[in-house]
């Protein structure tokens, strides 16, 4: 399947900031956090439209998020996912001895997909397996 090599940047957005205050389990939070801002040129190359899903893969994992057209182009080759559980399953945990993982400028591969974006509970279950009874 057609894909694109990009640099992944994660960060704060005002919408994600506001929706986290009304509750991280709220659907609004998922709408804002489980997205990926793409340059319109990159969207053309990938043949995806706004609102479709893409799979973003790094060395550390992959996640499905919804495409959002960037309003501040051009930035070809740079994609942005807001901070949150979706972005964090694919960021670089290495701290290079500083305690600080690398959350910006991560090499990533992006491709269109038909898979669904997981909600928070399913995401936790898929990546972290939930808690089992013995441990409780």
């Amino acid at each position: 399947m057609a894909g694109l090599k990009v640099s992944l940047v994660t960060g704060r957005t005002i919408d994600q900031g506001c929706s986290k205050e009304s509750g991280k389990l709220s659907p609004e939070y998922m709408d804002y956090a489980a997205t990926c801002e793409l340059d319109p040129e990159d969207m053309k190359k990938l043949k995806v439209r706004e609102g479709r899903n893409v799979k973003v893969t790094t060395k550390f994992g992959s996640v499905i998020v919804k495409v959002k057209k960037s309003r501040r182009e051009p930035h070809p080759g740079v994609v942005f996912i807001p901070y949150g559980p979706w972005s964090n399953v694919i960021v670089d945990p290495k701290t290079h001895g500083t305690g600080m993982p690398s959350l910006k400028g991560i090499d990533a591969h992006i491709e269109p997909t038909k898979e669904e974006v997981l909600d928070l509970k399913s995401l936790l279950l898929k990546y972290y397996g939930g808690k089992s009874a013995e441990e409780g």
Partner: protein
Amino acid sequence: MPLISKVVCPVCGCCCDDIEVIVENNRIVDVRNACAMGASKFLNYSKHRLKKPLIRRGGELVETSLDEAIKRSAKILAEASYPILYGWSSTSCEAIRVGLELAEEVGGVIDNTSTTCHGPSILAIQDVGLPGCTLGQIRHRADLIIYWGSNPWSAHPRHIERYTALSEGRFQRSIWRRFLLRVYATSIRKKLQRALALAFRRRAPETEEARRGIPYTLTQEERKLIVVDVRRTRSAEIADYFIKVEPNRDYEVLQALRALIRDETLDVDEVAGVPVELLEEVADVMVGCKLGIIFFGVGLTMSDGKLRNIDAAISLTRDLNMYTKFLIMPMRGHFNVTGANVVFTWQTGYPYAVDFSHGYPYYNPGETSVIDILCRGESDAALVVASDPVATFPGEAVRNLVRNPLIVIDPHPSATSLMADVVIPSTFVGIEAEGTTYRMDHVPLPLKKVVEPPDGLLPDEEILKRILREVRRIKRGAG
């Protein structure tokens, strides 16, 4: 309708202290002066919240009594050999102080959210120092404001309006007129371009500022705003000038500027995607200002180079002080992350990542920082206070965090509380409980209680005190 004024906003590091809250029947009905995030918190805080303590039984979280939740938490912490106590940036200094006592009692590692935020800044500051100031000075005197790797429009929405370019200072005027003119000019230009494109059926020539050189406003003797970032953020749109750096290459630009202000010439055409002529002009503006400040965000601390980026930024500031007055300040995220560093430091001597397992405070970020401990799989329990590491830590760290017993004290349900073994809901500090917070410039401010909390909910400080008492009882019983 009672109006409570001078409320300190418990959201970001700006800690705006001019918020007005209107309360009716113990409910916040309106909030004035707050930014979108602040208003969202004051108006929506009670919509999704935890009201009863939860405990995991048979794989399911079930309601329980507060006493039982506290006993279970104390048992987990007292029995663990290397527990992590994490969070702290969204609670009061008073609660953090109890947390430190608890960490010492259980011989665990206590770390706050600056470990995944401005931890590298702290390391750099410990190496080279920090010429700092309060935000009031910037509001009144700064004529050159630089945001580097920071997007205040989204992360600290009132920072520009209250303290920097859009604020009306005693000696410096706001740039809002210029900003509005530019917005009009840009929109007219875009319309013209669109008309041209339609008329000639081709793309109109690019009018990107970067191609044409530095805008005239930067040569004027008035307050100026420069934004340096890897992507064009909302803040970049307000700026007089935006410098776009390639991801992970800020260090090169900082060092190039250091060379340029010492009048050295660079033998390259561009540094990290920025043409050298532009850097030369920016260096001139920096040297020519009366009082400049660099506000740096996590764009520098989270990219390659980490603390070395901050080191370079502070060194640049130090070099600039040979010519003019220049200052630098980190843009702290959570409302009390500065307070967490301050309280940690006065209690233990170290600002974050403090390990009590030896019986005395030991600090070595990279070894005693929570991400590293989790990635190495060393901890055997965790207490999380007012934070959501399951959502904010890299996947590998989260896997080890949720594998072991996890206690969460938080008013909100979150990804972390879903994965916890004990969840103790607390009151919202700054809304339902009083406390002290530190603004990003180290000014302590009192958080107010504006409404009564729901029955049975206690502040973080009180919950931690009860856990501490119970831990001591268990340890004394065993000894």
